């Protein structure tokens, strides 16, 4: 965890980031912790390993051969998936990417700005606003989704890309994290100094505060990205045209249809396998920059 992002991230927990020095490993290993962790890893990797292997099986192999023996149908499965409804699967994947990238970018921007404003300015109703925000973090998504759906219907926006993108731009959790981060990363003196020099508030935010907040905002972006990519309920409610489905919803409908026709099982499994790849890849790349002590710091503020 001694990545750049972590070291830069301020934390109310004190001196985090730099892992404390340990005695070098000399031959001896602790068997109990190592074994426990290995068991945990096996448990967590099992379904992933299963889907990797199952996606290589043809329909008949899936039901006849032992689960963890690779099959011979991988390329056929991909071709089947590609042929299914003229390659709608790729459309779903592109949709997921669009929702996640655009949604996460916009919502990180909004979060950074509101978090900064909440942390820096004293204005009437600030505490109320913050408490409402906290309540928003706890609010079951469906409470918002029903009226959001009805409002979207009034604006004639249901079943459009907008209906999934817009509600996710304001993320109470993102604003909450940003406020904590802004309070820790942007010293009040610096903002004061900027004012003394005659910089406008907007200029202070974009030129001084924002660069200081970048490491924390990377975390917020990643959280939003994963949250939107994995979101199911909102598109489930908003969309009916499967051309606009994200992957989660697409796979779900595929499973629903496939429940009675085992021939579709291989499609679902191959689809699930491909759906896992982008996020796992992203995950492996960014896990070094994942500044999670921002999260654990959040509890103490």
């Amino acid at each position, binding site marked *: 965890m001694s990545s750049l992002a972590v070291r830069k991230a301020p934390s109310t927990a004190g001196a985090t980031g730099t892992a404390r020095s340990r005695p070098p490993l000399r031959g001896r290993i602790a068997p109990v912790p190592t074994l426990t*962790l290995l068991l945990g890893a096996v448990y*967590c990797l099992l379904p992933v390993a299963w889907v990797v292997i199952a996606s290589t099986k043809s329909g008949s192999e899936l039901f006849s051969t032992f689960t963890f023996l690779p099959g011979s149908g991988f390329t056929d499965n991909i071709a089947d998936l590609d042929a299914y409804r003229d390659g709608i699967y790729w459309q779903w994947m592109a949709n997921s990417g669009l929702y996640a990238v655009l949604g996460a970018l916009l919502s990180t921007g909004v979060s950074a700005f509101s978090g900064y404003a909440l942390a820096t300015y004293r204005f009437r109703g600030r505490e109320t606003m913050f408490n409402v925000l906290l309540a928003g973090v706890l609010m079951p998504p469906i409470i918002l989704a029903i*009226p959001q759906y009805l409002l979207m219907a009034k604006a004639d926006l249901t079943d459009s890309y907008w209906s999934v993108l817009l509600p996710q731009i304001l993320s109470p959790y993102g604003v909450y994290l940003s406020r904590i981060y802004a309070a820790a990363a942007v010293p009040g003196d610096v903002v004061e100094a900027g004012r003394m020099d005659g910089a406008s508030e907007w200029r202070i935010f974009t030129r001084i505060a924002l660069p200081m907040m970048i490491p924390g905002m990377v975390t917020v972006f990643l959280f939003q990205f994963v949250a939107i990519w994995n979101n199911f309920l909102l598109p489930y409610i908003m969309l009916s045209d499967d051309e606009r489905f994200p992957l989660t919803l697409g796979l779900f409908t595929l499973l629903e249809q496939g429940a009675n026709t085992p021939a579709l099982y291989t499609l679902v499994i191959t689809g699930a396998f491909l759906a896992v790849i982008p996020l796992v890849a992203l995950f492996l790349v960014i*896990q070094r920059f994942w500044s999670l002590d921002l999260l654990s710091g959040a509890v103490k503020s």
Partner: protein
Amino acid sequence: MFALFFALPIGYAVWLSFRKVHVSGLGLGSGARSEVWAGFANYTAAFTDSELLDGALRVLGYGCIVVPVMLGLALLFALMLDSEKVRLAPFTRLAIFLPYAIPGVVAALLWGFLYLPDVSPFYYVLDRLGMPQPDLLDGGPLYLALSNIAVWGGTGFNMIVIYTSLQAIPAEVYEAAKLDGATPTQIALRIKIPMVAPSLVLTFFFSIIATLQVFNEPTTLKPLTNSVSTTWSPLMKVYRDAFGTGDIYQAAAEAVIIAFATLVLSFGFLRAANRRNKRDLGPGGAR
């Protein structure tokens, strides 16, 4: 922005919950259906509805399995990662955290297949050993099956949160403890766990919220089994009422009740946790 996507929907939901459709005459013609004030009728209907109560009880049972198991495992793994002379820590840490990146729907789908007798490796092994094969997708085992999905998806995330705060404990504390002759187990129980208590409170809190809002996993398993009804969890019932049977007013009332219950539970919990921390650590202690 805030008002448009947040305050307005909540206000609208509360308003809807007090309304209902009044059908006059035979319900034909454009003027026959009109929205009228319903008072608390939707709320009384919701409170006397056994489906909602059953759903709440199911989620309670589910939560009683998920939260302790998930946090227990997360704490265990975090302590193991933090212990000395452990091998393969980076690999196992990543492996255990990996399920966090997998969408809940896909996770439920994967486990769903692993539960299906036709394709599951567990059943294959049990079959070869000549052992009885339980139906994981029915009755009591269904709770275990659903809980397992949540535990699988959530342990890694909580582990990282706890592990990060374990790393923040200064090394001097351990040196002092070692000089006093404490064993690793004693250090873990007496020093590490109390010092990461704030993180445990946080993870506990988030786990409860997530549990109350369970929707994706049972919905995804539904096509695979008949035992998951459309009203298995309260949120599923809200969805069914709003979009299945089309009674958005009833659904709004139920949604408001669930939101209210969630808020009362969470703020109550936060206050209780605060009071405890203040007592333990004195004023100015971790909040």
